[in-house]
């Protein structure tokens, strides 16, 4: 008897998750505007911001640092961050337009609705990430099986964690207008303190602390570790701009010249990055299922 009940509820959970997920993916696919946006937005960030910053670095003395290359994994993580978090606005829509009621009175567990929503959002985020992978060579990174597969893995883990956070927030929100505002409050600091845009090196102590408690930092670090493996971003030439013949002479006569600081590809070990993101994700998923179950 108990065995049957357990089997029944597992089946209900799986069915519920599947249909909620399928519906969200269908809706995304039907929305042409969202598909175009998914394609264009990261490109804007990469080329407009990346090129701008690269030039700035050149002018202010970092030499031939490949800044676009440095930013590429960061933008990849950012794409996942934004899509994941904002995908959960569909819950508020569903509440506003009544479909949430159809789901909550169906004989499926509430946690399966949360799970379906999380998987749905993660799927769309992953899809965006995959599109973005096509631009990899444009950032000066050549394809390799390791890079692509590992990037997919990191994206999958990251998108699940971030949609869980989005769903958790949306499960308690009633207002359509309030959602983007609250989201920006949470998103922007998470984004700026993640190292997606600038290296987390040589920061003041308080800021370094904030980046360490930001789970997104670990996601970005993981992404950078796997995507930029084996690449050197900063050529180790000296900071001083002198004619090459003179430089050679100085070096051969044993003078120590100041070198530009190295742009680090990886701050933490990969397994630590993934563990942090996974752990936070699991916690957020449990919390969001709980919140979903409780609402009347």
């Amino acid at each position, binding site marked *: 008897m108990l065995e049957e009940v357990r089997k029944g509820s597992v*089946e*209900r959970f799986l*069915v*519920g998750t*599947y*249909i909620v997920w399928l*519906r969200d993916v*269908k*809706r995304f696919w*039907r*929305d042409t505007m969202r598909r175009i946006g998914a394609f264009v937005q990261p490109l804007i960030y990469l080329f407009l911001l990346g090129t701008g910053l690269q030039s700035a670095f050149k002018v202010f003395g970092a030499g031939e640092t490949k800044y676009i290359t440095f930013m590429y994994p960061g933008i990849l993580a950012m794409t996942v961050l934004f899509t994941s978090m904002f995908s959960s606005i569909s819950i508020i*829509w569903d509440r*506003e*337009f*009544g*479909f949430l*009621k*159809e*789901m*909550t*009175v*169906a*004989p*499926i567990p509430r946690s399966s609705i949360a799970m379906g929503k999380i998987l749905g959002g993660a799927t769309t985020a992953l899809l965006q990430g995959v599109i973005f992978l096509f631009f990899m060579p444009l950032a000066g990174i050549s394809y390799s099986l390791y890079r692509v597969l590992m990037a997919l893995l990191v994206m999958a883990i990251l998108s699940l964690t971030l949609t869980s956070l989005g769903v958790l927030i949306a499960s308690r929100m009633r207002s359509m207008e309030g959602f983007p505002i609250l989201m920006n409050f949470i998103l922007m600091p998470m984004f700026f303190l993640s190292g997606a845009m600038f290296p987390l090196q040589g920061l003041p102590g308080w800021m370094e602390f904030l980046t360490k408690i930001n789970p997104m930092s670990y996601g970005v670090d993981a992404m950078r570790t796997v995507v930029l493996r084996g690449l050197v971003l900063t050529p180790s030439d000296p900071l001083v701009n002198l004619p090459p013949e003179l430089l050679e002479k100085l070096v051969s006569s044993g003078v120590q010249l100041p070198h530009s600081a190295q742009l680090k590809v990886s701050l933490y070990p990969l397994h630590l990055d993934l563990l942090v993101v996974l752990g936070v994700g699991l916690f957020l998923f449990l919390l969001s299922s709980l919140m979903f179950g409780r609402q*009347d």
Partner: protein
Amino acid sequence: MVAVIEVQELTKKYGDIEAVKGISFHVQEGEVFGFLGPNGAGKTTTISILCTLLSPTSGYAKVNGYDVVRQKDEVRQAIGLVFQDPSLDERLTAWENLMFHALAYRVPKGERERRIREVLDMVELAGRAEDLVETFSGGMKRRLEIARGLLHYPRVLFLDEPTLGLDPQTRNSIWEYILHLKKEEGITIFMTTHYMDEAENCDRIAIIDYGKIVALDTPEGLKAMVGGDVVRLVTEDDRKAEEILRESYGVKMIRDRDCLCFEVDRAENFIPKLIREFPLRIDSISMHRPTLEDVFLKLTGHEIRPQAPDEMDNLRSFVRAHSRKKR
């Protein structure tokens, strides 16, 4: 007869406000049972408890033999629901909405397509199966929701104000479906309404006001409570007229704010007599057979729809249509 819905001493409090104040009733299998009352009387709260969406503060309710608090999934599987507010996914087609429902209620795989076709035929939407719901009119959406509510062959169909905000023609056709369902499928129907004329279609009606059931009977039985005919009178001085009527004619007054209403047997004989003898000037006089409106007035002392309800309904459907466009 078997009771499909059993409600015992049910109460629901929201903070200090008691929305439902200890109601008890049974609904028999195959019945069309109506909950009649003004907005805010506790109809939607009761229906939400019966559908497991709200937990009661005290008392218990059983649907199809299952407890609505402890056996939620069993209750949900046994009921179909049409909400007061629309609950379709407008970005999906009619077919996809129904398929979602069929999967959620675990309609067997081989059955799904046949049943979807069957319910679409029933509400005459078979030709629109592949169209997005956002292209449907209000009446079509409501019909689709009824079709969806029937897809998993529920024992009880709950309809919360199923015709709210619809035009009279659509209201009639929805009622045709409801009565057809009762006759052909033997399904039990529990509905709420604040339209008196609709309530006449029910087998039994519970009149609910301020969270309490004030009467429960067949429409005929309820009307018999008023007895005789209802005469409505406007005079130069209603207060004085009421006194005279009470003392000299011994008629039963029905309380009302705007005019004088009372019951008499055989009003067609009473009115000429009254006009001949009455000492005050009579501005207007009319009579009618008792309606549920009179019953409600008699039982509660106020009309069922105190604040220009038609305009409220219109506003409501306007807001709905508008918010749909906005999206």
